[in-house]
């Protein structure tokens, strides 16, 4: 991973690829690399769909090795949804394959002069860029089947669906999984639209003839990996809860807490939660011949995903995740898990972010386009977006645009991006992260890595009112660091509770690169990444007034706790003071 693949889509004579040394970006991976490139190379005021924006696809620092959980791939650029910097990451096979091919990142630059679509094929033998307009408006599933027919089944694909081609702000970038299905997505922020603006429909990666990356200290690396895996397997969340029930194990619990946004964030509890919970999903998957315990990439030992079969026992989609089930379920008043699974499939095929589309449909329901609870109506709205009808063009551009188009005040977005599945009135702390993350409302922006392990920002008195502010800051720093390693964020549960597992992660990095990093160094990296991102956003025009939740969270009581969001603006402005 000592080289970058830069592809200039607006080069004279057609798109041109060049391989260059990684240079000033050496030692960076994942989110650290995407945010470094975007902050240094993209003019902050550039149009997200213009030729000056970049789309950066970067494997993690340990991708392409035998390290467990090292298969996240970051995608970065200036977001058409938020107007700020964006990193969104995904599982799937591409990260491992890209790293084994030796690339620290693929950087798409410029924009084709004509309205053509391109396929990029990358193998050990080089890079081939082919104009292929026959791919136009193919869904991700059909597209991958076509790539399989052309290149065999030892490939991994990074692609966009029709939504990306139409440059919709809710468009995702799809990654194929172990079964070569386009089920994993860098969903947030509309980066699929940026890929569409570059005219790139699909990047096909073939690592035939390559081998795993070799660590500096092989024995130490193996030992660290073993300790790391042992730590993940012995932790009740990564070793039991997630493998058995997937991420949607959270549904019942968040519902019980009264923090499960229902009917476009009107209530904190949904009557139909037991019908769409992770526990119910897992039982149905087993009964129908699916699989509730399945990894999204090779080397995953948590295996929080699964395979969903329809009522007739046929594959439909991967196991819908917690956020997806909430967005298309409770938030829209829908308790039909099969309808939700169908919407997951459609989102994947059209190339749409499930969170953004669920939030958008709920706003559309509030506007009266269809009734809350109308699963068929919700599915039809997704088809409108996927087909690009005039209504679909509005919906596919997200909740904020849809709210404006239909005159709806209650639109749950921050910096234009829809809130995920936790109501910040019940859980005030996550509201701080939603509001202040440079990414827009993002549940993964402040994930759980213990500050007392990372020692970010010193000791925090949790009883002080400002404790939530400091926790949110420190979590955002820690998350940026984990995202930069390219490790699945779900390792955070074990790392948080088990200092030896966190040490094993450090040992993995140190043994691979011949370093002597400490927790402080990882923290410093996280700080630096956040600093780059916030500086970019400031130059793009963001102010503290953008670090706010929508007004209705302060005004409307959320049953059952009848809570409003209480953290003062002045406190929120302190999140990044130190």
């Amino acid at each position: 991973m000592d080289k970058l693949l830069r592809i200039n889509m607006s080069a004279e004579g057609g798109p041109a690829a060049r391989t260059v040394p990684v240079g000033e970006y050496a030692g960076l991976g994942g989110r650290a690399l995407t945010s470094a490139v975007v902050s240094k190379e993209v003019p902050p005021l550039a149009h997200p769909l213009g030729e000056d924006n970049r789309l950066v696809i970067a494997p993690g620092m340990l991708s392409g090795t035998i390290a467990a959980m090292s298969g996240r791939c970051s995608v970065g650029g200036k977001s058409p949804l938020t107007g700020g910097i964006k990193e969104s990451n995904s599982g799937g096979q591409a990260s491992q394959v890209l790293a084994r091919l030796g690339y620290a990142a693929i950087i798409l630059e410029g924009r084709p002069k004509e309205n053509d679509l391109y396929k990029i094929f990358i193998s050990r033998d080089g890079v081939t860029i082919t104009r292929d307009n026959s791919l136009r408006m193919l869904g991700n599933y059909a597209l991958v089947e076509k790539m399989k027919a052309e290149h065999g089944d030892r490939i991994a694909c990074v692609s966009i669906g029709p939504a990306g081609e139409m440059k919709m702000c809710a468009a995702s970038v799809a990654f194929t999984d172990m079964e070569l299905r386009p089920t994993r997505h860098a969903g947030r922020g509309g980066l699929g639209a940026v890929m569409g603006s570059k005219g790139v429909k699909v990047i096909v990666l073939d690592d035939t003839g390559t081998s795993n990356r070799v660590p500096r200290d092989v024995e130490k690396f193996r030992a660290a990996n073993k300790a790391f895996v042992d730590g993940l397997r012995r932790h009740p969340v990564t070793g039991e809860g997630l493998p058995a029930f997937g991420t949607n194990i959270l549904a019942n619990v968040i519902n019980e807490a009264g923090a499960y946004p229902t009917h476009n964030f009107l209530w904190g509890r949904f009557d139909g939660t037991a019908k769409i919970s992770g526990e119910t999903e897992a039982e149905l998957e087993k009964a129908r011949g699916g699989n509730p315990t399945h990894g999204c990439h090779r080397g995953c030992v948590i295996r929080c995903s699964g395979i969903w079969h329809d009522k007739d026992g046929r594959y439909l989609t991967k196991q819908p995740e917690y956020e997806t089930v909430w967005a298309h379920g409770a938030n829209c008043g829908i308790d039909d898990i099969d309808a939700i699974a169908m919407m997951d499939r459609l989102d994947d095929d059209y190339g749409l972010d499930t969170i953004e589309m669920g939030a958008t449909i709920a706003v559309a329901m509030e506007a009266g386009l269809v009734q809350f609870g109308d699963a068929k109506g919700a599915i039809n709205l997704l088809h409108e977006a996927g087909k690009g009808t005039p209504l679909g063009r509005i919906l596919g551009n997200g909740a904020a645009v849809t709210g404006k188009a239909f005159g709806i005040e209650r639109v749950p977005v921050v910096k234009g991006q829809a809130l995920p599945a936790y109501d910040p009135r019940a859980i005030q702390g996550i509201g701080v992260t939603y509001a202040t993350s440079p990414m827009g409302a993002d549940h993964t922006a402040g994930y759980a890595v213990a500050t007392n392990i990372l020692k970010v920002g010193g000791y925090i008195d949790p009883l002080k009112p400002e404790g939530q502010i400091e926790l949110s800051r420190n979590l955002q720093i820690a998350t940026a660091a984990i995202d930069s390693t390219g490790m699945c964020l779900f390792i955070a549960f074990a790392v948080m509770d088990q200092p030896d597992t966190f040490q094993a992660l450090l040992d993995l990095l140190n043994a691979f690169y011949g370093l002597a990093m400490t927790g402080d160094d990882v923290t410093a990296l996280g700080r630096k990444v956040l600093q780059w991102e916030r500086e970019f956003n400031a130059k793009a025009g963001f102010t503290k007034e953008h670090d706010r939740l929508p007004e209705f969270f302060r005004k409307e009581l959320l049953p059952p706790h009848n809570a409003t969001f209480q953290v003062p603006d002045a406190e929120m402005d302190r999140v990044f003071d130190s």
Partner: protein
Amino acid sequence: MAESTRSDAVPTLGLTVPAERVACFFPLLQRGVGVRVRLGIPVGVFLREGLGLSDATIEARIQTVFLDGRPVDDIEEALLCEGSTLALAPAMPGLMGAMLRRGGYYAPMRSGITHRGGTLPQGAGEGEGEGFIIVKLFGAALRELGPALLARGVAVDGGPLASLLESLPEDCRRGLGGRAALEGRERALLRVAVSGETGRGSKGANRPPRAGRRRPGRRRAGFRRRWRGCR
């Protein structure tokens, strides 16, 4: 095997099902079932005495606890009263899971909804000292606590029970002669025992455990009077 008994007010349905069918009843446990408890006791006492869990098991396996929708940090301080809703789960994933964990480092981030224990609502716990609470089980707690809870007997609303019975696989439905008697009832007591055999339904089934059974008259009085709860 089904055993349907009926008193004037609270019908009781006893079922014996193959081990692999116990999960059919988990939707009920996710929604919540009525469980008879001594009123006024802390959650910790109920877990130890009511469910028979050791301190070590509670520490390791019951890391997420809600009482009346509020996350509990100290299970020895949170008291059960008539109609309380108690939800039990293991450690949960994500930042939210970490926040909701009892006594967790991130608990301050949900301080606005944290359960403040120590006092019973006025009037709660009066009378003969027993009453019903609603118990919900999530995640691994379903498999770890569910079968014992079902065997001990749980009170279920008639509507959800009827829906469940209709959805049961055939090997669980065999012998459901008393089902009709339950229809239209506001609530019923359900006991589910696991057969020693697997996949063969009721043949050779164990009878529901006698432990915890009470005289119909006494149960009926407490159940009916207290169900509506103290909130």
